[in-house]
């Protein structure tokens, strides 16, 4: 029997009169690849902020592997296995590539509180950072400041940071935004190659990527779930076609 990784019940977020997320019920199974699509302003990124805990919910529940995490702050949720990337690259600007990766690999370890031993002497943490950076071809550039990386490399480093905590649920917010076709292909390959036990929630505007990566799609519109199902089911849904008419290709 499949384990439910994530379940939300009536999840809501209001900003005054604006209902960014207006009662979202979601159920994602462990290991599932789920794409969240929808027009701009549908509430996709807000949904991610609610799931990660960076924005407090106005109502509803978030249940992660059977545990209610609605009231937990972000750092606790990361400890329970949530990792995320950001639509707008959110790295540590004045630190080097290696320092960025180290911050991520130290993140869930008690050694992060060590006030005396140099960070680089923590061999196992350094090795883990090295492994991640090498997997993404960034090890050679480990001394470089973030600003010297290409935009595509920065987006890849974003994913490195999210993976360092060994997440069970990975939230990818438009990982291919602004990337060239070659870079998009590389990222798609990475996402498809992730450990099958990791549950992936993917916000995407690029439909090709969404349909390649995901098994199921959830369509958001005005903060609510408009449609949900397999790729073909969603493609064939007349409501979904209507909202996308003229906005993009299905």
């Amino acid at each position: 029997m499949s384990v439910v990784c994530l379940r939300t019940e009536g999840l809501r977020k209001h900003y005054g009169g604006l209902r960014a997320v207006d009662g979202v019920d979601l159920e994602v199974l462990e290991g599932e690849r789920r794409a969240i699509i929808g027009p701009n302003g549908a509430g996709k990124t807000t949904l991610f902020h609610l799931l990660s805990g960076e924005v407090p919910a106005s109502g509803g529940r978030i249940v992660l592997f059977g545990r209610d995490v609605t009231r937990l702050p972000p750092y606790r949720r990361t400890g329970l296995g949530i990792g995320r990337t950001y639509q707008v690259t959110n790295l540590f600007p004045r630190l080097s590539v290696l320092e960025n990766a180290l911050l991520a690999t130290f993140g869930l370890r008690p050694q992060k509180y060590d006030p005396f031993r140099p960070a680089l002497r923590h061999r196992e943490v350094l090795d883990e950072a090295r492994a991640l950076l090498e997997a993404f071809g960034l090890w050679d550039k480990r001394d470089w400041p973030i600003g010297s990386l290409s935009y595509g490399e920065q987006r890849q480093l974003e994913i490195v940071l999210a993976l360092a905590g060994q997440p069970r649920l990975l939230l990818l917010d438009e990982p291919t935004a602004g990337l060239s076709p070659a870079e998009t292909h590389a990222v798609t390959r990475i996402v498809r190659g992730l450990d099958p036990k990791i549950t992936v929630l993917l916000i995407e505007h690029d439909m090709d990527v969404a349909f390649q990566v995901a098994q199921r799609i959830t369509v958001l519109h005005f903060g609510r779930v408009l449609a949900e199902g397999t790729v073909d089911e969603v493609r064939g849904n007349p409501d979904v076609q209507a909202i996308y008419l003229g906005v993009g290709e299905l």
Partner: protein
Amino acid sequence: MAGRALLWGVGVVAALALPQVVPLYFTHLVLLTMVYGLSAMSLDLLAGYTGLTSFGHAAYFGAAAYTVGILTTHHHVAPAAAFGAGVLVATLLAAAYGLLATRAVGVYFLIITLALGMGTWGLAYRWSSVTGGDNGLPGIPPLDLGLPWSLADPRNYYYFVLLAFGLAAFLLYRLVQSPFGLALRGIRESEGRMRMLGYNTWLHRYVAFVVAGAFAGFAGTLYAFHNRFVSPPDLHIAASAEAVLMVILGGAGTLFGPLVGAGIVVFLRNLVSAYTQRWMLILGVVFVLTVLYAPQGVAGGARAVWQRTRRRARAAEGAPAEAGKQPVVQR
């Protein structure tokens, strides 16, 4: 690397030889540089490394100094015990103030630390029965640790301060190189991201605040036993601002830059005061000029130049950095 070791070696030898070769007054200035430098370095931990600029740092320096003064002059406590008490009080004060200050977001932190700093000054100024009020506390005895060399002799005290400074600076250095120090810089760059990586950022900020206060208190006790006199100006916003200036002038986020900044301020103040009363005016002008033209400070600017030459050299060679040999974490 060899060049740096040589520089350090020369520095240590010079520091050890100093009292034997220069006039006593010069030794006194170097001692003050170390004391204020330590305070500035502890502020750098907060401001440069964590991104929390405190305008009330003199409160901890002063609280420690006053504790020493009150205990030794009013209650005739042994100097050694007063020393420990001074550091303890400063730490406790930072622990209390830190609870408030770390609740503040953004620019409020600045204002709150300023307000708390001046509030502490107000305590020193008005609570005359305990603090001596405007007159301060004169007659602090010299430090006595039962050593064969009397610390009443300024030259001996210089060596004591040199040792104490060296120890404290070493601890701060290890702290900024450690995972904890790295986390502080992460918080400075992007606190939200840090939370999402699993860090309880409030705890880091709070601990940094208390540690900074503790080291400032340590500096304050060293000061009290040297100056033998403590008064309200030691806690005034002007003193806190001087600390901030030392950090900026020396280079925020470089740890030893603020030591250089302290040296500049101490020697400049000494020079200026010999000719004119207008030190505060000069201080203000130096402040403005530094912000306008040298915001990275001496060490910050030097480091930028060094990094650029290193990168150009590496690019010219075409070779990537060697694995694990080049320390990446900031000095």
